[in-house]
């Protein structure tokens, strides 16, 4: 058992080490084409995972909110000449505000109805951005560079990678903290039984609305970081296809654990980046992976890992202790 735990700890140290030293281990291409997108797509996906895991709400509106922040930030920077930090702040605040409105509209529904309302809100966002010239229509807004201190996101992605990594870690820690606060515990109560929580004096609708706004803020941060790292954003960045990609990331990684969002984002990013080199039907491969995960493990890849880990621990605990090594027989005393 202890050797397994040691190996497990070693593996965790290796993973953390690779994540921390990634720009120095891998090429610029891997950093900018795989690692950076994994982080911002994972950030968008974690907003969905969070709402699902702790609020019982599977929202398809996250890309719409991602677009509100990303497109507004881009418009303020490129068309109004705003400082990137100030534009990003306004973008994220706008996404949070729109998230409150979306939450107010959707929070009285549950299950399939909630899913459909949030899908409708995502589509409304997409068609709105497609029709408003200030947001660049389908051509989008180009030359949306991140703050100079972060460096060029394509040629020198190290600064952007570490900035994204810090943001992702902070968001992850914040969410882990939030779910242990009175607000977060109540949120889980709302997830389990809204009527029971109402009878205990909780305003269920307000809780659902506020948590939706938290998810919107996270999706908004992802939108800003996407615009900065792609140096562009358009209405197509928030289309139904992107909504599905975010959902795929959340499901493939696992909707029961926040970490799953980044695991799923990594799988999807690798498949979409390298898949076309092998086959034109790489999207089918992603679909097959998605289907297999849904069928085999509702908890996604992280769920498979958790299950395996549990099985190994159980097997090691139930294994009878090894028999003591037999001592060499003492030499016969005396002789023939």
């Amino acid at each position, binding site marked *: 058992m202890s050797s397994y735990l040691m190996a497990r700890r070693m593996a965790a140290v290796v993973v953390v080490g690779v994540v921390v030293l990634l720009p120095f281990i891998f090429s610029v291409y891997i950093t900018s084409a795989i690692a950076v997108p994994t982080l911002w797509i994972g950030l968008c996906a974690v907003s969905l995972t969070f709402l699902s895991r702790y609020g019982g709400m599977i929202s398809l509106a996250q890309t719409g909110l991602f677009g509100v922040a990303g497109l507004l930030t881009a418009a303020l920077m490129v068309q109004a000449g705003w400082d990137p930090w100030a534009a990003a702040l306004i973008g994220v605040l706008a996404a949070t505000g729109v998230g409150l409105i979306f939450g107010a509209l959707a929070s009285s529904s549950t299950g399939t109805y909630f899913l459909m309302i949030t899908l409708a809100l995502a589509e409304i966002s997409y068609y709105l951005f497609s029709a408003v010239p200030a947001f660049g229509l389908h051509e989008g807004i180009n030359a949306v560079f991140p703050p100079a201190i972060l460096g060029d996101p394509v040629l020198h992605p190290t600064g952007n990678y570490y900035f994204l990594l810090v943001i992702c870690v902070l968001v992850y820690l914040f969410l882990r903290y939030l779910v242990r606060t*009175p607000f977060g515990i109540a949120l889980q109560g709302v997830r389990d039984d809204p009527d029971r929580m109402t009878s205990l004096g909780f305003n269920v609708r307000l809780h659902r609305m506020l948590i939706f706004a938290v998810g919107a803020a996270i999706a908004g941060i992802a939108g800003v970081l996407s615009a900065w790292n792609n140096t562009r954003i358009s209405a197509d960045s928030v289309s139904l296809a992107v909504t599905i990609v975010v959902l795929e990331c959340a499901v493939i990684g696992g909707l029961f654990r926040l970490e799953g969002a980044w695991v799923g984002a990594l799988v999807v990013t690798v498949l979409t980046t390298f898949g076309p080199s092998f086959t034109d039907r790489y999207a089918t491969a992603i679909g097959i992976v998605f289907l297999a995960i849904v069928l085999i493990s509702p908890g996604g890849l992280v769920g498979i890992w958790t299950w395996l880990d549990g099985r190994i621990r159980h097997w090691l605990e139930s294994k009878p202790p090894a028999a003591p090594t037999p001592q060499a027989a003492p030499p016969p005393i005396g002789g023939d």
Partner: protein
Amino acid sequence: MAEPIIRLRGLSKNFSGVHAVQDLELDVLRGARHAVLGPNGAGKTTLFNLISGAEEVSSGTIELFGRDVTHLSAFRRARLGMARTFQSSRVLSGLNVEDNLYLAALGSHGGHLRILPSRSDRALRQLARETAERVALSGRLDSMASDLSHGERRQLEVGLAIASQPQLMLLDEPAAGLARAERQVLMDILLGFDRSVTLVLIEHDMEVALTVAERVSIMHHGRIVVEGTTAEIRSDQRVQDIYLGRENAA
């Protein structure tokens, strides 16, 4: 004389033409132990849903704690000092026992949206642990509610009502499905309340109902047809007719 903590006047509830509750009048005095009995389909749970705000009234008025709450939302009614249990256990299955009871305590104390630590948290956790002891669940504080047995879930259900420190408790069949030993635990809990808490219970188990309650209302076809002390109810011919199904034939 104690004033009514519940006052219902002309209360009716229709579901697509079905009269679940009809022109019902009821006063429950502060500190009372009042049972609402009746055969299945009499409208007892609908009555609780109307009082707690889970269902909207079709007509009539509801006063709680001397205040008209007919159009007040369910969560605001709960915050006035009312707690309820449900016919089938409605515990928060994804949380452990302590968090369940902590939420019940938090619900009546405010600070629901707090995300920063507060001194009141320690007191609320303490209240949750004390409540767990009161409902004989102190050994299961860390157990997920989904892992509890049926009897333990019923105990937690009552614990949720107790932890909110209400002035009025509506108990919907608290003894349903309990084994004899578990039922005794429940009766001890109910008999242990002081008079600052008013108890109104629906119960099919006559031993529990008539031991806990001092006054009884018999519901039939959405109306209260008989009301009196437990002794009066035991000897009332109409009650026997209703329970033996002779009332309709008469």
